[in-house]
């Protein structure tokens, strides 16, 4: 038996029939083809499946799709602008914030919430915010550096958009 739900995923309305047992991460990946959200542990530990649900970072393996009915969902696919990388993505690139890249979408979705709440975080705040995201390449130092660099970049006025 399935349940009909409606989600707004990266700005697009989606009507879906979902098995009430299925976690949101599976519906995003298998029914919507949004495979940037990764399935890691499926136990709420690793954070690779982090998305934003009504603006808040959640682990989408711990949310049943059926209970997200009516919600706004933002995945890593929705973070990319028209062409340029988001400053967080650019900073992960510039600062070697990933090795295998498996944890990166979750790291970025979590860091987005941190920077929305605290635009100029210190080192300790970044570490605390990312404490629910595991990196098995042990690249934490460069991940923290990347988030701090992104925070700094996001404080500067965007040069490309100047009217000249």
């Amino acid at each position, binding site marked *: *038996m*399935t*349940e009909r739900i409606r989600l707004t995923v990266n700005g697009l309305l989606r009507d879906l029939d979902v*098995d*009430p*047992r299925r*976690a949101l991460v599976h519906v995003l990946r298998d029914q919507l083809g949004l495979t940037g959200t990764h399935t890691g542990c*499926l*136990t*709420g*530990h690793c*954070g690779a499946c*982090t998305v934003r*649900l009504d603006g*808040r*970072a*959640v*682990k989408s*393996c*711990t*949310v*049943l799709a*059926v*209970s997200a*009915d009516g919600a706004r969902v933002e995945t890593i696919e929705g973070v990319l602008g028209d062409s340029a990388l988001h400053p967080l993505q650019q900073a992960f690139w510039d600062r070697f914030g990933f090795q295998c890249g498996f944890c990166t979408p979750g790291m970025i979705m*979590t860091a987005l*919430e*941190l920077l929305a709440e605290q635009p100029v975080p210190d080192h300790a705040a970044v570490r*605390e*915010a*990312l*404490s*629910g*995201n*595991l990196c098995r390449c042990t690249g934490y130092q460069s991940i923290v550096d990347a988030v701090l660099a992104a925070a700094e970049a996001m404080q500067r006025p965007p040069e490309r958009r100047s009217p000249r």
Partner: protein
Amino acid sequence: MTAPVYHAPRSLAEALAVLQEFRGAGTVLAGGQDIVPLMNQGRLAPTHLVDIARLEELRNITEDAGLTIGALATHADLVRHGTIRSHLPLLVDAVRQMGGGLQVRNRGTIGGSLCAANPAYDLPACLLVLDAVLVLAGAAGVRRVSSSAFFLGAGRTVRRDDELLTAIEIPALPTGAGSAYVKLKFMEGGYTIAGAACVLVASANGTCREARLAVSGVSAVPRRISAAEAVLAGHRVTSETLAAVSAQIAGTITDPIEDVMAPADYRREMAGVMAARAVAEAAAR
């Protein structure tokens, strides 16, 4: 395994009616931080899933003489709340030391965390030292249960399967009270090895007028350790009294948990150490 029947009641009365109808077969879903991982792993297969997340009436944190926390308030709601930050810092300590990061704080509810009755969770010991009362609603009416009587064992509480935990009532602390929660874990996302919650009420002369101490992670049920509280009452917090508290705690716990993370004796000793740290921290606040 067949899919569960999904229920999304829109009011408390409707939720209680569903639980009553499917008594024994209804699994309450709130933030899902315990239940959904169990379902993913095939360790839990509900037949009726009662999703109470839409009961907005259970989400509020309200202030009167004390504080009433709706069962659906999230851990993030707790640490954002002005009065909790200023008057109940032990709750902020507990949330900040939880595993799982921002995401679990955002989604996990206070009621879910308590009803899970996981010995490794941090809030139960905090509620014990706050003398909190848990409000349970059932088809037959509402009953109030002391936090010291709520937990029966690992994964077991006095909540009947046709009842919902709707709120947690926290009486105002006496003037001059400081509080803290301190715990030991081996990695950021790891579970509690031993934790201790403390409320200290200071007298004008600098001695403890009242001390409340509870430990978590050490036994199946969180508990107040009155023998250690008695060590502090009427005395100043010094290195000698802290050592006596540690010894008293370690000596009182007779049934420490032993598992892959830590042996029983280590947990018992660490409970004493965490208690001394919690007392020192509460005294400094």
